[in-house]
């Protein structure tokens, strides 16, 4: 079985800007794949390369084993949920959802029935007669999803689809998207800058930075065993320790990642530190420590005692918590 999407040394340059730079990428069929990275890291350009809105400057792209270079978007069985939804303002919701089938020449009754079924799937039945302008952001998002899914694409691309929603709605949609993806078995490629979203939803994640993929792996791998200090810092805001600090804390002279929630605070054993700040996060409190001039964050779960600013504490961690990333990560 070929990969759903495969990039071989794909680059996309805009003048001197290397938006995507020699990227290798394999996405399995039926996978929920997240592309994670800060803005400008090339993840959206990768998505647009799959959709066909951009052509690679160099390299080779295959979609289900077929060459995709030079193939226009309208000949790719790939659909996109756009960041700002891109619903057609002059068409009502049902006609928006039925657009793909209308283009393919499906009869009016058939395509409107399918559209209604798709709207039901995204929990918006009886909204067909409204115009996109009359919907809330969350509803538009669902219409955009229905409009893409009704075409039964081989790959569904989602470009930060939850970015404009409020927290509550976002969490609800994350859950629904995951359920929907498992039920339909369609390959989802999801672009996001929100590491929490990527970790909770994806089967595998590719972390992008400056047009390159830093690391690809399961959420667990990315979180537990970051390969570079960028990944460690971007995913879950780990404490990234430069080699000399790692050495001082009893490790080898290598870059290391130490998760804030893995650190124990006590008063008798471990390295000495001063509390320089605390901030309450709700489910936990983040304690910022000064360890011989180096800042280290520690998370204290809600309910545990929190030291106050200026207090002296001792910190320790289980040996496996200190994740080493090499001398030049």
């Amino acid at each position, binding site marked *: 079985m070929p990969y759903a999407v495969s990039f071989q040394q794909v680059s996309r340059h805009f003048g001197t800007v290397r938006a995507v730079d020699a990227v290798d990428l394999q996405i399995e069929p039926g996978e929920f794949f997240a592309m994670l990275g800060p803005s400008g890291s090339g993840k959206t350009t990768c998505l647009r390369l799959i959709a066909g809105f951009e052509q690679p400057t160099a390299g080779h792209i295959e979609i289900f084993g077929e060459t995709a270079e030079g193939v226009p*978007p*309208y000949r790719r069985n790939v659909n996109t949920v756009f960041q700002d939804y*891109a619903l*057609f303002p002059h068409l009502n919701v049902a006609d928006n959802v039925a*657009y793909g089938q209308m283009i393919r020449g499906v009869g009016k009754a058939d395509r409107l029935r399918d559209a209604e079924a798709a709207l039901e799937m995204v929990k918006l039945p009886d909204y067909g007669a409204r115009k996109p302008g009359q919907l809330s952001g969350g509803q538009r998002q669902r219409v955009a999803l229905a409009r893409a899914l009704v075409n039964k694409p081989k790959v569904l691309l989602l470009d930060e689809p939850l970015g404009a929603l409020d927290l509550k709605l976002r969490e609800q949609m994350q859950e629904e998207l995951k359920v929907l993806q498992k039920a339909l078995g369609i390959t989802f490629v999801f672009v996001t800058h929100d590491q929490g979203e990527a970790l909770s939803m994806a089967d595998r994640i590719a972390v992008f930075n400056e047009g390159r993929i830093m690391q690809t792996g399961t959420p667990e791998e990315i979180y537990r065993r970051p390969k570079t200090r960028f990944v460690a810092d971007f995913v879950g805001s780990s404490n990234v320790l430069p080699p000399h600090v790692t050495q001082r804390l009893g490790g080898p002279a290598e870059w290391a990642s130490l998760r804030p929630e893995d650190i124990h605070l006590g008063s008798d054993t471990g390295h000495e530190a001063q509390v320089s700040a605390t901030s309450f996060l709700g489910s936990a409190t983040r304690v910022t420590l000064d360890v011989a001039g180096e800042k280290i964050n520690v998370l204290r779960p809600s309910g545990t005692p929190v030291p106050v600013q200026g207090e002296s504490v001792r910190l320790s961690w289980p040996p496996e918590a200190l994740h080493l990333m090499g001398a030049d990560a």
Partner: protein
Amino acid sequence: MSTAATAVPAAILPGRGGIGGALSDAFWRKPGLLLFLMLTPPLLWLGVIYLGSLFALLIQSFFSIDEFSGMVVREFTLKTYGELLRPSNLDIIVRTVTMAGMVTIASAIIAFPIAYYAARYAKGRWKAVFYLGVMLPLWSSYLVKVYAWKLILAKEGILTWVLDKLHLTFLIDGWLALPVVGGNSLSLSTTGTFLVFVYVWLPFMILPMQAALERVPGNLLEASADLGASPGQTFRNVLFPLALPGVIAGSIFTFSLTLGDYIIPQIIGTSHLFIGMAVYAHQGTAGNIPLAAAFTVVPVVIMGVYLWLAKRAGAFNAL
């Protein structure tokens, strides 16, 4: 504490003072007042002078002229409208409306690619070049342009000369031999009138079209392609419906300007009258103000019907 307090600015600042300060405060509290003051003069102008004279014109069209004395009889009658519907006058109306329709369609076809380029691709300096290119012809006198075209289209003009050098004179001769559109030379044919109308009114089609196309988000075109639509299908189903209000706005300009113009068909074209020329002749030399007024009512009614049809066809749904 008290010394520190003097250094802290007051929470409420004192009034700015003077008439200006009092006025800005008053306008801020009553925004409607400012709106009223700003809108009254133009509304008076529009309401009294413009609409008032239009109304006076409408009344005139219900008067008639005494055929013996040549005096206007100020009594309500439909006699003038009866006169308007005589075959010779109907001819004028049909000719003018057909011309206006053709000019509008041709302008829309020529304007679309230009407006599309300007809206989608032109950036920075090229955008300035676009605006300059479209507006520049509007800076020179309309009469100069029309007379320039008369020279271009004349029998001894540059167009004939170029075609002659290319041994293509037969094209122009063949076209001029056709009925209705033909004539002695391009500058004395309906074709010439049409060409000059299109040239002169084209900017009025390009600009609203470009404004409408500019408001169509690029990702809608991408979404359409993503859903399987070829460029042609995207044009028909997304781009054109969304640009339609701009096309209608442009067509209102080209259509009504052609309906009312009386100079171009006088300088270029056949001796057949257009509505504007008929109005000019009736209110001037003939002194038949009621018939001139009735002729003027025709474009107003046609534009009204046109807008009503456009609205019914859903042209403004995307607004």
